[in-house]
């Protein structure tokens, strides 16, 4: 299996689009043509190009910064690492452009125009990138760090970062910049379509991220609280090996978690009389082997007497219900008050396995019928007369106790 190196793959892709990248870098933007359409799509997919105005594309801020650094290109008002710096740079560029324009310095004016356009796109890209980073962090719930304490710190950090960005977007005077650029069609259009019109959407996204971060902080606190409880409970169990919960099953209204309804075993059978099932049933029938397989029967040769018996006596294991009956009577004959068979059934599900309650009661009664005369127990019935059939009783429970001496 070949090992794919993502860096090598990316650089190979960039190499195939090198002329388009160079054009976009030196000219500030590149227009889509039949020749470069594939390059542009590829570079957009790699998030290295972003749309400019009038069907043009420009290098994304991060890629341009990389090329600037690699080619040691000097920038005007070199910016800081934060978006606030980008905003400040834009304001400075607009001011300087305005002065150069008023003083009639055309060459400088042109240079400031290029830089201002880039600064506008830098801000839009930076906010876009910031949103992507924040959304990724929020979506994975800070999966890169494992402990809740770290997650909480990460959460607080991003909360602060998002809040700062929101404040920045709310406090920056976009209208001033818009007014200053009003006389320059190209720049005004860039500013409007790339930045000022997108600000409400940016703000909305940031607010929803902030809401999520607040919610996560609450959840992290809850998770931390639960972990503390689990540890405290584990410690309590370790320190008190004989601890058992109180009889919460005997309170008048048991808690919701105690009221789980009885499991119902659901079995369904095909309707063999239904004609639409005939084909399916026939198919199943065809998969069943026609004979149960050959039996190897070894017959005793005539005139030969076998001295060894071929049959080995196998003692079957004690059935779970038999075992349960034995345990129940063993405990019950030690009790003077007696033990209810139904209560014993309810509190010993492990011993009884899946034996149903009514079967269990019948089995206890059968044991008494068979061995009651010689046994050391007394059996009492909790019963009521049948409302319709005279002479019959409805047995609700059976109580077995020590036989009085």
């Amino acid at each position, binding site marked *: 299996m070949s090992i794919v190196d993502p860096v090598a793959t990316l650089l190979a892709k960039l190499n195939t689009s090198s002329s388009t990248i160079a054009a976009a870098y030196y000219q500030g933007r590149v227009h889509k043509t039949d020749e470069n359409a594939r390059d542009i799509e590829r570079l957009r997919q790699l998030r290295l190009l972003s749309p400019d105005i009038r069907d043009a594309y420009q290098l994304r801020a991060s890629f341009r910064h990389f090329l600037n650094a690699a080619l040691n290109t000097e920038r005007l008002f070199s910016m800081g690492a934060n978006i606030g710096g980008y905003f400040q740079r834009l304001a400075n560029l607009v001011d300087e452009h305005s002065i150069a324009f008023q003083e009639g310095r055309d060459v400088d004016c042109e240079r400031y125009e290029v830089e201002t356009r880039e600064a506008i796109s830098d801000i839009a890209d930076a906010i876009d990138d910031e949103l992507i980073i924040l959304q990724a962090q929020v979506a994975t719930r800070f999966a890169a760090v494992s402990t809740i304490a770290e997650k909480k710190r990460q959460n607080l950090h991003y909360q602060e970062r998002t809040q700062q960005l929101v404040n920045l977007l709310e406090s920056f005077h976009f209208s001033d910049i818009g007014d200053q650029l009003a006389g320059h069609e190209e720049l005004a259009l860039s500013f409007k379509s790339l930045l000022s019109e997108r600000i409400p959407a940016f703000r909305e996204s940031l607010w929803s991220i902030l809401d999520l971060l607040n919610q996560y902080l609450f959840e992290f606190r809850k*998770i931390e609280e639960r972990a503390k409880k*689990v540890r405290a*409970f*584990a410690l309590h169990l370790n320190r008190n090996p004989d601890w058992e919960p109180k009889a919460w099953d005997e309170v008048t209204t*048991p808690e919701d978690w105690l*009221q789980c*309804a009885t499991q119902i075993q659901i079995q369904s059978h095909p309707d063999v009389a239904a004609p639409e099932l005939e084909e399916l049933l026939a198919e199943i029938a065809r998969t069943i082997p026609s004979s149960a397989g050959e039996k190897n029967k070894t017959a005793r040769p005539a005139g030969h007497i076998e001295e060894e018996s071929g049959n080995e006596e196998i003692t079957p294991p004690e059935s779970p219900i038999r075992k349960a009956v034995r345990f129940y009577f063993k405990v019950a004959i030690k009790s003077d008050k007696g033990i209810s068979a139904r209560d014993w059934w*309810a509190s010993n599900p492990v011993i009884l396995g899946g034996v149903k309650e009514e079967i269990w009661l019948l089995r206890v009664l059968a044991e008494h019928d068979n061995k009651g005369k010689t046994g050391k127990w007394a059996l009492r019935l909790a019963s009521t007369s049948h409302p319709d059939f005279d002479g019959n009783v409805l047995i609700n429970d059976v109580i077995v106790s020590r036989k009085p001496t």
Partner: protein
Amino acid sequence: MFDQVATHLLEGKFICESTTPEAFRWLKSDEAKQEISTYLGKIGRRLSKSPNDQAYYATWTRVGSSERTEVKRVFAGIKQTIRPLIHFITLCMEVEKKDSSPVSGDRLEYAMLLKAVTENAHLFEVLREFGTMGKEFTVTDASAKGMLDKVIKQMEQWGYLILINREQESYRFTGKLDYYYQVIEFLMENEGITDPSSQEQEDGTEQRRLI
């Protein structure tokens, strides 16, 4: 989807994202809840959910004398599982060096667990303690693997873990864990079980106040 959800609930199963994702997502809508509740109501049952909405299960509409036996059976089951389950959760937390307890949907890698209990004597001792917690954990093979297999199998049988990848032996915690945390919370609140660390903090404050 209705028949699948109704059957699961009647069979006493917990419906959660880990065990039956489609059914769980379907049941999240108000219409589905209403449909299921109406059906269950006709047979003396209702739809309940765990506190953090991570699992749905069926409960009685009212607890009369005949339901009381079932309540006792449920409580007996909780008493039987409470120690081993908390022991297992703390073991997982120690192995993963996490300060959070597992929740529904969290993955559990068998290989990582086995490596930890094999290489760390303390964790092996924690695993060995399962042997004192009932016959469900009795093993003939006393190796770390033998014991861990038994524990994992039991947790799966009780419905707290589900195997998601047989080849990689990956498991996922189920929504039933949320139900279990609810039980712990109730018992702590109502049986006066306190967090010793907060108690120690309180004692410290009290001492400082007296000084």
